[in-house]
């Protein structure tokens, strides 16, 4: 065992990178669920975003355009879900699962000619002085912009839900859509926007995997990240701050356990492998032992007649 071979600076830096895709996808799903929509299609929207972003970034040479395209791609796919659940009044669980299967298929089709291509590198932040600081420089000030964007997004969503009128309306729709409707709020419109936001975020999260974290295109490359994002929202009891905590815990322990393995720590590998899931769930479940609960209208179909 040689713990000194683990560099804490690099470890913390990789933690932020590993946490970003699930963080962004989960915060989008959180908004959708707070409006009362359970969209199980996160995995499908992520992988679609991953390939849309990859194609555009490769074709234009601009990672920024790639991320924009990923958000649009994810949002477009989520509109399919919106069409089914909000207008055709289909079951949300079934529609979401279908969306995941569809997304995996359509992304594989779109990605046919893009296997083995390298995307343009996403520039990293490089602030003179700050980025050169020992420890804090590499940990805090030398990431790509998406890492900061993810954190800012969490803060924005938290503030929006807590302090703004728009957040209040969104929560009202999620808690009791009939009452919100009786008060004159446009339930379908609010949910449409929330689903679109969730799709765009999932797309961004997926593109972060294909453009920064891996970076390449491989079929099915999100490999379950969408499901982890979904679980994170539930275990974070629909609170933005806890999603951030959960994503960092999960990302952090994932990276840590790989480092511990490489350093030859005498803990059985099976325990190390399950530790990210176990510890994240444990911490968040203990935290949610207060009275937090799911939005009351979550997963229920709304029709103005009802």
């Amino acid at each position, binding site marked *: 065992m040689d713990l000194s*071979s*683990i*560099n804490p600076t*690099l*470890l913390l830096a*990789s933690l932020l990178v*590993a946490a970003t*895709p699930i963080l962004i996808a989960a915060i989008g799903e959180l908004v959708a669920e707070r409006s009362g929509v359970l969209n199980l299609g996160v995995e499908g929207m992520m992988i679609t975003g991953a390939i849309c972003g990859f194609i555009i970034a490769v074709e234009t040479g601009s990672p920024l355009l790639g991320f924009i395209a990923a958000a649009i791609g994810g949002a477009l796919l989520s509109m399919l879900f919106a069409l089914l659940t909000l207008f055709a009044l289909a079951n949300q669980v079934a529609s979401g699962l279908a969306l995941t299967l569809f997304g995996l298929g359509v992304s*594989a089709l779109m*990605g*046919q000619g893009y*296997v*083995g*291509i*390298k995307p343009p590198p996403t520039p990293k932040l490089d602030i003179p002085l700050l980025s050169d600081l020992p420890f804090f420089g590499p940990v805090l000030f030398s990431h790509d912009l998406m890492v900061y964007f993810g954190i800012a997004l969490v803060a924005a969503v938290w503030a929006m839900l807590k302090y703004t009128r728009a957040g209040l309306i969104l929560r009202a729709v999620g808690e009791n859509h009939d009452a919100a409707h009786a008060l004159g709020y446009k339930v379908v419109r609010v949910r449409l926007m929330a689903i679109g936001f969730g799709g765009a975020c999932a797309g961004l999260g997926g593109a972060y*995997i294909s453009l920064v*974290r*891996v*970076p*390449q295109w*491989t*079929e*099915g*490359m*999100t*490999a*379950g*990240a969408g499901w982890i994002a979904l679980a994170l929202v539930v275990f974070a009891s629909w609170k933005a701050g806890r999603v951030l905590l959960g994503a960092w815990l999960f990302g952090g322990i*994932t*990276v840590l356990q*790989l*480092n511990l*393995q*490489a*350093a*030859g720590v005498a803990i*059985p*590998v*099976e325990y190390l*492998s399950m530790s990210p899931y176990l510890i994240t769930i444990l911490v968040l479940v203990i935290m949610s032992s207060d009275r937090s609960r799911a939005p009351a209208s979550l997963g229920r179909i709304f029709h103005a007649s009802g």
Partner: protein
Amino acid sequence: MKLTSFLTGAAMALGLATSALAQDITKVGFIYVGPIGDGGWTYEHDKGRLAVEEAFGDKVETVYQESVPEGADASRAITQMALQGADLIFTTSFGYMDATVGVASKFPDVKFEHATGYKTAPNVSVYSARFYEGRAVQGHIAGKMTETNIIGYIASFPIPEVIRGINSAYIHAKRVNPDVQFKVIWAYTWFNPAKEADAATALIEQGADVILQHTDSTAPQAAAEKAENVITFGQASDMSEYAPHPRVSSIIDNWAPYYIARTQAVMDGSWESVNTWDGIREGMVGIGEITDAVPADVKAEALAMKDAMAAGEYHPFTGPLKKQDGSDWLAEGEVADDGTLAGMNFYVEGLEGDIPQ
């Protein structure tokens, strides 16, 4: 009246035609553990499937299912394929072993072929390739080229096939570089690009400048490329899109000849349960081009080793070799038997850490 009888006649002709057609066509099914576009393991199996189609044209119909999880769901997928009328089913991952044998007992008329396993039945064959021969070549190049003397190894599951690979690579790296150290990460997945990339990054951050992988995607190659002074080897497929650097060589699985031969055997009615384990000599294991990033003398030695294995003159597990606990395994000049290799569950002397049980 005339019209009706004409239609009936036509329908009957059509019915006869389709049933005649159905008898002529051999249906071959494939169960894959990853997507066909993984660029590695499943990609090569699918190339084998396409070769079968090419070889037999209209006489064969192939079906496949991708990303089938190892475990209970595999039984469902294999059963479904058998019910669809497949005559021959290839299940292409170690974790399908029990599912394959279980389903096979319910469909005695269907032939099954399970890759990399060891359980056979009257209608179940097993086939695998001696990937450890390729690992020996990799280990030699890795040992010669590492400057930090740390070689990172991304392992998938603690099964004999993977352990053989680690041992073979280590023996040959150690032989040319006594200071070499292996750091092994068990990813517990065959295919998860993000996790594979994280594992490669963790190894690189801990000083590894050679990354060997036994997982299926090209993600570790991309991670190594980002890190610059790191070399890698293509796994299962050539992964030549990462050549000449970081990918300096590769192990290529070539399943096509085997798949064609077995399909032919089903057509002829000569199929019987066999246990195939072919290597470089038979062409089932190929060594991808060694790029110019490797010094010429190292390349020549590596190719000489490959030729010796192809000629049957050299076996990667030749004594004297000891097990990790220091006990004797092979005496001077003794060669490991296939039984021990097939069930290998121990590290050789010098490797650090434990194999997860």
